[in-house]
């Protein structure tokens, strides 16, 4: 019973937040709605015994990623945005809504029919209710997924190079020396 109440409250937070993200006129409101959704999702993670992931969700997602969004929105200035996205987009909105509703219909039909019950042995590390989930995550991460873990570092190198090169101010004299002569 308590599970159901927690689910309903958290789900309501998620849904209100999600709708808020896509309909808010002001990007700052959108970002704050996104934080709300992410918190709701973190509650669901706790309900599914994924405590570490819930913490990551709050710290990394709500804490770092959304702050990055807010930072960029503030940097660009809110006024510019509120002037944007108006007029001439009615047809597009309707089409997008139709697409979303049809997709939702298919997925709802599908998801209500998923049967609860374990039909197979878990592949990889099974969940052991007596071990803290962070230990189990670590075992899985450094055994089955160790290659993916290492590959993530390559991905982060790429992102760092990209963020630096795209956001640094053009410096003509440096570019000449790098790209000009050989």
């Amino acid at each position, binding site marked *: 019973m308590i599970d159901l109440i927690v689910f309903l409250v958290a789900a309501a937070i998620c849904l209100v937040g999600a709708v808020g993200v896509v309909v808010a006129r002001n990007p700052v409101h959108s970002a704050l709605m996104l934080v709300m959704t992410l918190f709701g999702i973190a509650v669901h993670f706790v309900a599914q015994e994924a405590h570490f992931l819930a913490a990551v969700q709050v710290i990394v997602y709500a804490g770092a990623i959304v702050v990055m969004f807010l930072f960029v929105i503030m940097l660009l200035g809110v006024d510019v945005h509120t002037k944007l996205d108006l007029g001439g987009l009615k047809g597009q909105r309707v089409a997008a809504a139709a697409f979303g509703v049809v997709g939702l219909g*298919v*997925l709802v039909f*599908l998801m209500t*029919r*998923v*049967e609860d019950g374990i*039909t*197979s042995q*878990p*592949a*990889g590390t099974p969940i052991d209710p007596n*071990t803290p989930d962070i*230990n189990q995550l670590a*075992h899985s991460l*450094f*055994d*089955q*997924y*160790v*290659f*993916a873990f290492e*590959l*993530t570092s*390559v*991905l982060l*190198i*790429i*992102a760092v*190079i*990209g963020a*630096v*090169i*795209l956001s640094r101010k*053009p410096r003509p004299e440096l*570019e*000449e*020396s*790098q*790209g*000009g*002569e*050989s």
Partner: protein
Amino acid sequence: MFAQLTQFESPPVDFFSLTPLFILVGGAVVIMLVTSLSPRPIPGWFSTAVSVAASAGAAVVAMVLWNDVRESGPYSTVSDAIGIDGFSLFFTVLVSLGVIATALVGDAYVRREHIAAPEFHALLLTAATGAIVMASANDLVVMFIGLESLSIGLYILAAMQFRRPHGREAAMKYFVLGAFSSAFLLYGIALVYGTTGSTSLIVIRERTSSLGAMVSPSELLIVGIALLLVGFAFKVAAAPFHFWAPDVYEGSGSPVSGFMASVAKAAAFAGLLRVVVVALGANEGDWAVPLAVLSAISIIVGAVMAITQNDVKRMLAFSSVGHAGYILVGVQAATAEGMSSALFYLFAYTFMVIGSFAVVSVIGWDNGHPIERYEGLAKRRPWLAGAFTVFLLAQAGVPMTAGFVAKFLVIKSAVAEEIYWLAILAMVASVITAFMYLRIVMAMWARDADVDDAPRLAVAPATAFVVAAAVAITLVYGIIPDSLIEFTRDAVPALVAGN
């Protein structure tokens, strides 16, 4: 707590099989470290040299591994995350060659556009790492991170030409649509994981082929496969998910467009083949027909839209959509022959398209690519015009070129599976597209232009080398394709567990 720590044993790693990846990432790190730590400016050719050397090293190691695999069979390493088989090594070689060609063409390009050379080459190498990982992944998580490494690298490469407004817009479009399609792919992956209970392609193949061991309903897997197809169709630029391709190819720098059309497309096809065709091979009934339809739409869109363009780069972009359709003809046949024909096509197309974009990069020195500019090119630059003619005729599928053999093989594989409508459509459409390619050829050879921009069309030696090599490969494999066909026959994904 500590008792558990001591229980942990890290999985065995066969470092030699991962050497191609180490070399590529190492090359990128060397470029970034040396150029940023050096007290005096490092000349631009240094990055190019490291980039070429690293990719050449990766290709050589892959060939050595290829011999091992032929002798002792395919295997997996690092907890079965990476499969070393003919398929992954074929793509390692293909991607490495693509990086060498792009790096050499890019050398002159970064100088002309004042793009930071070290970052350009480092991103090429890391994106190539992602591409190779996609072709070698035995696990959906690994596949996804490989895909993202490649995609994010490409978003940045497209955005690097930010002094041109078109470049910035292309990057934005590419990023939004790429991230959107990644989300679809991920949802598909989640549904496949939900049905089978594993992210390992090996386990997925076992469970889908035996049935029974999965979560019901079976529609869950079908919708999952459908979302996977949407995601991959975006990445290979197959119609109707191609709409980003013309803008992005037009807006990005020509060498980057060539890289997208060759290496990125090849990697996306590798992922498609590995996940859908091999791991989910038991569900052929669910994906073969949708793939055939995607293939047909791509071929038609590629042919019809290419004719109506007046910008050579957009023509090449639409023709690239069409080529994705032809490759899908081989993929949807879902036979060993079909797969090897698709690989042959990818190999042949890689060199045709990198060569084409190298020529386009030289002629579109100010990023203008109207077809008028190509008029009378044969008089001004006969060798360049000759090379471009070879690439265009090869893409049109004229005999004696690799393009003809590639088209012939994919259509043959469709006929062998008795999918005649697609085979006929492919043949008819190739006649229509031939008109578009001939239009450029005619402009180059039959018309005269009163402008004299020959002095501007300076061909850097590295670019000339790439163009000449691509012409040679296109012609050699057009006349004697047997060795390459044999190579592609051995390049089948194995999905075996253990060392």
